[in-house]
C-alpha cells in the first residue's frame, strides 16, 4: 500500500511540474511581444510608449531592473551612508522604482532620498532559461507577481474569489452523489421500466444541455414565474448560511446537472454488470432481501468505476463552473479567469491556470488512493 501511495505521489509531483512548465511556455508563445499585447486595450488603439512596454516586461517577469547609484555623485554627498543606500535600493519594489525613475520623481530608499539623475537604472531582458528557473521557483512558493489590472499580489486576489468557487464545487459534488447514485441504482434494478426510461432521458439531457443553458433556464424561470432573483451581493457561508445557500444552490445545481447525467449513467451500467454476476445469484438463492443484495453486495463492487469517473469529471465540473459563474454573475474564480483573459492580465491567468491544474491533479490523486483503498487488487500491483 505505502509503496503505491509514494509512487502515485511522485507521479503527481512530476505532473504538477509539467503543468508549471506548460503554463510557462504557453505565456511565451503569445504572438508578438506579450508586453505590447498586454498593454493594448481591447478594442482601442492607445499610444503605447517604449517606457510602458519596458515596465510591463518587468511586471511580467521578462526583464529585470538593474539599479546602480552614481558613485561619483553620491559617495561624497552621503559618505558612510553610501553602502546603506546600495542595499536599500536593491530592496525596493522594482516596478515602483522604474515608475519613479521614468517620471523623474524623487526616490525614497530606506529613508535616503535620491534624485533619478543620481542613479543609473537599466531594464535588461532576462534569458529564457533564467526566466524559467525563476518561474519554477516562484510558483513553488505561490509567488505569481502582481495582478496587472489592480496591481495587487495575484494570490490575494485569488483568495478573495476562492471561497465562492469552493462552496459551489462542494455543494455540486454533494448534489451529484446524492442524486446520481440512487438514480442510477433505481434505473438498474428497474431496467427497461418506467423509472429506467425517466432516468435515462434525464441523464442524456444532462449530457446535452450546456451548463450555461441550464443556468439561463433557471434564471429565466425564477424571474418569469416567481419574480425572484438570487441575492446579488455575495455573502460567505459562515456569515449568513441561509442567504448564502439561496445564492449558491442554483449555480451548484446548474453545475451538477451535467455531472448527474454522467454519474447516473455510469452507476447504471456498472450496477447492471455486477447484478449479473454469480455471487449475486447466490445471494438471491440464499433468500436475502433485495435491499441487502443491492445496497450491500452489488453497490460495493459497482461503486469503483463510478468513483473513477467522479474523479475524472472534477476538472470538467470546474470548466462548467466558469460559465455558470458568468451566467449568475458570481464573484468566483471562473469569472476572475475570464476577466483576466479579457484584460490580458497574464499574471492572473498563469496563477489561475496553475492552481486549477493542481486542484485537478490532487483530486485525481485522492481518487486513485481511494480506489486502492477500496480495491485490494490495485494495492499489490
Amino acid at each position: 500500500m505505502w509503496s503505491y501511495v509514494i509512487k502515485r505521489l511522485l507521479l503527481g509531483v512530476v505532473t504538477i511540474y509539467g503543468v508549471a512548465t506548460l503554463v510557462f511556455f504557453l505565456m511565451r508563445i503569445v504572438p508578438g511581444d506579450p508586453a505590447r499585447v498586454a498593454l493594448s486595450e481591447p478594442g482601442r488603439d492607445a499610444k503605447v510608449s517604449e517606457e510602458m512596454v519596458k515596465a510591463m516586461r518587468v511586471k511580467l517577469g521578462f526583464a529585470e531592473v538593474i539599479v546602480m547609484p552614481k558613485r561619483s555623485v553620491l559617495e561624497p554627498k552621503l559618505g558612510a551612508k553610501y553602502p546603506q543606500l546600495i542595499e536599500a535600493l536593491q530592496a525596493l519594489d522594482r516596478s515602483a522604482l522604474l515608475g519613479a525613475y521614468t517620471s523623474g520623481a524623487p526616490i525614497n530608499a530606506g529613508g535616503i532620498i535620491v534624485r533619478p539623475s543620481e542613479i543609473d537604472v537599466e531594464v535588461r531582458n532576462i534569458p529564457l532559461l533564467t526566466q524559467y528557473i525563476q518561474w519554477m521557483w516562484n510558483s513553488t512558493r505561490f509567488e505569481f507577481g502582481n495582478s496587472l489590472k489592480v496591481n495587487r499580489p495575484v494570490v490575494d486576489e485569488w483568495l478573495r474569489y476562492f471561497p465562492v468557487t469552493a462552496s459551489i464545487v462542494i455543494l455540486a459534488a454533494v448534489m451529484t452523489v446524492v442524486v446520481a447514485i440512487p438514480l442510477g441504482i433505481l434505473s438498474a434494478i428497474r431496467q427497461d421500466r418506467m423509472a429506467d426510461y425517466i432516468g435515462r432521458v434525464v441523464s442524456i439531457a444532462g449530457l446535452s444541455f450546456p451548463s450555461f443553458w441550464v443556468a439561463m433556464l433557471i434564471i429565466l424561470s425564477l424571474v418569469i414565474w416567481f419574480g425572484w432573483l438570487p441575492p446579488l451581493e455575495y455573502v460567505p457561508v459562515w456569515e449568513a448560511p441561509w442567504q448564502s445557500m439561496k445564492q449558491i444552490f442554483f449555480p451548484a445545481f446548474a453545475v451538477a446537472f451535467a455531472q448527474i447525467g454522467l454519474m447516473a449513467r455510469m452507476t447504471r451500467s456498472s450496477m447492471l454488470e455486477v447484478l449479473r454476476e454469480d455471487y449475486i445469484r447466490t445471494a438471491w438463492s440464499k433468500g436475502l432481501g433485495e435491499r441487502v443484495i443491492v445496497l450491500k453486495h452489488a453497490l460495493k463492487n459497482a461503486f469503483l468505476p463510478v468513483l473513477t469517473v467522479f474523479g475524472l469529471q472534477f476538472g470538467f465540473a470546474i470548466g462548467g463552473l466558469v460559465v455558470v459563474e458568468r451566467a449568475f454573475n458570481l464573484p468566483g474564480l471562473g469569472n476572475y479567469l475570464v476577466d483576466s483573459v479579457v484584460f490580458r492580465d497574464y499574471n492572473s491567468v498563469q496563477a489561475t491556470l496553475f492552481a486549477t491544474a493542481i486542484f485537478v491533479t490532487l483530486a485525481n490523486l485522492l481518487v486513485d488512493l481511494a480506489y486502492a483503498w477500496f480495491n485490494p487488487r490495485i494495492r499489490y500491483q
Partner: protein
Amino acid sequence: MPGSTPAYVTSSSFAERLWRIAAATLIFARRKPLGAAGGLIVVGMLLAAIFAPYLAPYPPEEFIDGGSARLKPPSLEFPMGTDNLGRDILSRVIYGARLSMLVGFLSTIFGTGVGALLALFSAYAGGIWDLIVQRLMDILWSFPSLIVAIVIIAVLGRSVPNLIIAIGIVVIPSTARVVRSAVLAVKETEYVQAAEAAGASRLRIVFQHIAPNCVAPYLIIATASLGGAIITEASLSFLGLGVPPPAPSWGRDLFGSAQKFAELAPWMPIMPGIAISLTVYGFNLLGDAIRDVLDPRLRGGW
C-alpha cells in the same frame, strides 16, 4: 476464361455500393431507433449548415425594415421571433449551425487525429517514447478542458482557426488514452510479429496492420467528442471568446442582450439554446448507438 477477372473480384459499381450503404443504414435504424433519431438530427443540422443561404428567410445580420421589427414574438412571418435589433432569430439559428458544425467537426478531426497518431507511434515504439507521451497527456489532462480552451484563445486571439485549435487540443489526451490501450492489445498479436519477421517497415506495420484494428475505439471516442466540442464552442462564444459579433453564433446569441431582454422576449435566449441542446442531444444519441454497435462488450447494456 483465362485473362479475364473472375466475377467475385470485380469491384462493385457505384450504384451497388450506394445500395449497400443504404441497406446497412436501414438495418442500423431498425436496431438502434434512438441512434437513428440522433443521426437524423445530425444530418438535419449539417444540411441546415450547408444550405443556410437557401433555407434562411432573411440574411442573418439584416435589421428587418430598418430595424423597426424589434422583439416580435414568434409568428408565421418570424417563426422564432426577432431580437432586440430587429434581426430574424430563425435565420440566425440556421446560420449559427454553420459555425457550430464547422468548429465541431474540424476540431474533433484535428484533436482526435493528433491524439490517435501520437498514441499509435508512442505505444508501438514503447519504452521511453510511451512514457514521455503518457506524461504529456497526464499534464494536458490535469487542465479543465474549457479552461485550456479559454487560455489558448487568450494567447492566440479570437478567430475560427484558433477556436478549432483550442477545442481540438482538449480532446487529444482522451483519444490518446483510448487508442493507446487498443495499440497495446494489437501490438503483441501473432500477425504483427509475422509482419515484423517478414521485414515490413515500422511505418507499414503501424499503418497497415495496427491502425485498422484501432478504428473502432477511435470512432467511438471521436463521435463521443463531437457533442463536447459543440458545447465547448458554445461556451466560449457565451463567454465572449468566440467569433466576434455580428456573425451569428448560438452561444453568444443566447447571452448578452438576450439575457437583458429575457423577461420581455424569452424566445431570444430560448431558441438558440434549443438549437444547441438538440444538436448535442443528437450527437450523443448517435455516439451511443455507434459505441453499442462497435463495442461488443457493451451490447445489451445501456
